[in-house]
């Protein structure tokens, strides 16, 4: 810059332009997907789910802000398994999930909440700002384990604004139980609209991950993939 400016008389702007900026880590927006992969999901449902998750990754990659800020974790249940720890979209490698076993939703939710709490601690330790975590649980059935403790933890977390918890029922899901777990109204998915859901999630995250203090972020309408019963 100096060699260029030396040829013109001094202007104020050139001195300001020498500014050196602090390199802070980007604020992060954690998202965790708790996915029912029980036996009843075999066939088209699990295939659509796997495709949806892959499409989610590529949609996030196409947004320059979201790719730096959104972190995704995946837990499947049937049995409870951490498919992917929290990571940015570019390193997130969704491996195909297979359908098997029962539906330990309660344990999966507890695992997910613990991972979110731990992630927040990691952010704090490293001076990283973060947005309120998003938790999504998907199921096509009923929990086969005790889910009351999970429901209590969800209630507490929602009340203290520790996270946002959304429950989504696919065809066959016990919506009544979901309504007892989530404090927000559960959504019913239209058919197997996983792709539409993940497109919606990705544009919602794009909006939230660039929001500033005090800003209410209008989320896109979810009617493309689901509805409240």
């Amino acid at each position: 810059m100096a060699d260029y400016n030396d040829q013109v008389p001094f202007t104020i702007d050139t001195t300001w332009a020498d500014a050196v900026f602090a390199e802070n880590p980007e604020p992060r927006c954690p998202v965790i997907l708790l996915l029912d992969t029980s036996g009843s999901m075999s066939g088209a449902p699990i295939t659509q789910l796997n495709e949806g998750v892959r499409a989610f990754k590529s949609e996030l990659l196409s947004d320059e802000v979201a790719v730096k800020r959104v972190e995704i974790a995946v837990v499947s249940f049937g049995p409870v398994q951490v498919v992917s720890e929290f990571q940015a979209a570019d390193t997130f490698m969704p491996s195909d999930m297979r359908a098997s076993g029962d539906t330990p939703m309660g344990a999966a939710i507890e695992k997910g909440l613990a991972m979110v709490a731990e992630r927040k601690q990691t952010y704090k330790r490293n001076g990283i700002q973060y947005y309120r975590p998003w938790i999504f649980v998907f199921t096509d059935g009923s929990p086969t384990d005790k889910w009351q403790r999970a429901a209590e933890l969800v209630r507490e977390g929602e009340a203290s604004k520790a996270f946002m918890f959304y429950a989504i029922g696919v065809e066959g899901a016990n919506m009544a139980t979901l309504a007892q777990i989530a404090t927000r109204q559960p959504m019913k998915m239209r058919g197997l609209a996983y792709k539409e859901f993940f497109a919606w999630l990705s544009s919602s995250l794009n909006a939230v991950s660039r929001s500033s203090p005090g800003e209410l972020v209008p989320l896109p309408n979810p009617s493309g993939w689901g509805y409240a019963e």
Partner: protein
Amino acid sequence: MSHQWTYAFASAIGTSHTKTDSPMQDFCLCEIVEEWGGFDVLIAVVSDGAGSAPRSQEGAELTCHTFVTTVRDWLEQSGLENVDVNLLKRAQTICRNAVVQMAEEADTLLSDYACTLIGAIVWDNQAALIQVGDGAVVYTRVDTPEKYELFTPPAKGEYANTTYFLTDAEERLEQTVCLELIDGSLSQVALFTDGIERLCLDFKTETPFAPFFDVMFRSLMNGQRSASELSNGLGKFLASQEVNSRTDDDKTLVLAMRLPTSTPLDIPA
């Protein structure tokens, strides 16, 4: 009498606001007032209107004007004697009441005008600082010119997109406002909104990022230029591609520096 201070202040709209056709919601003011006893006093204020509040730019502008007018009147009428934490608190109440009145006259919600407030009154051997919400004040003292100090970290809620506002309920404001009378002579002062926070503070250590302020204050010292010329240059800098590639929010910076030739009088105790 020539002023003891050189200063610049400017705001620039964020690219995210340009994209969505929303207005710039930051505002700032800075001036030197000769108080009743004849001393120069620096008054500086910045305010960031909430993105979600439809009239927050009016709130921010009114807050800044009210703060400066109120403090200026006090200084001209009764000098520095009564400037303390209580007076800052009164300034806060007067600013808030002005916004309350504006909301009532427009028959709208107070939260429609939600905005932050950071104010500084700096004189020979003390400074009074107030902060509600995010953004920050960074300063150096005459005795330790190399050491940048942060008044208080930007008051965020837990999350990156939450903060506190002057228009919050009074009980909440009571909890979130930061007021302090700093003993000692400040040599450099910077006030800024959250739009440039990530460029000039190290978040991990919650400390000012010295290289940024070094250049900013060096720029202020370049030649005997008027506040409006300097502010013009600062405004261009804040609107530059360099800055915009690192933040898409509105950004505001006030810089003031005590001129080296006019170090404060050493008054024996």
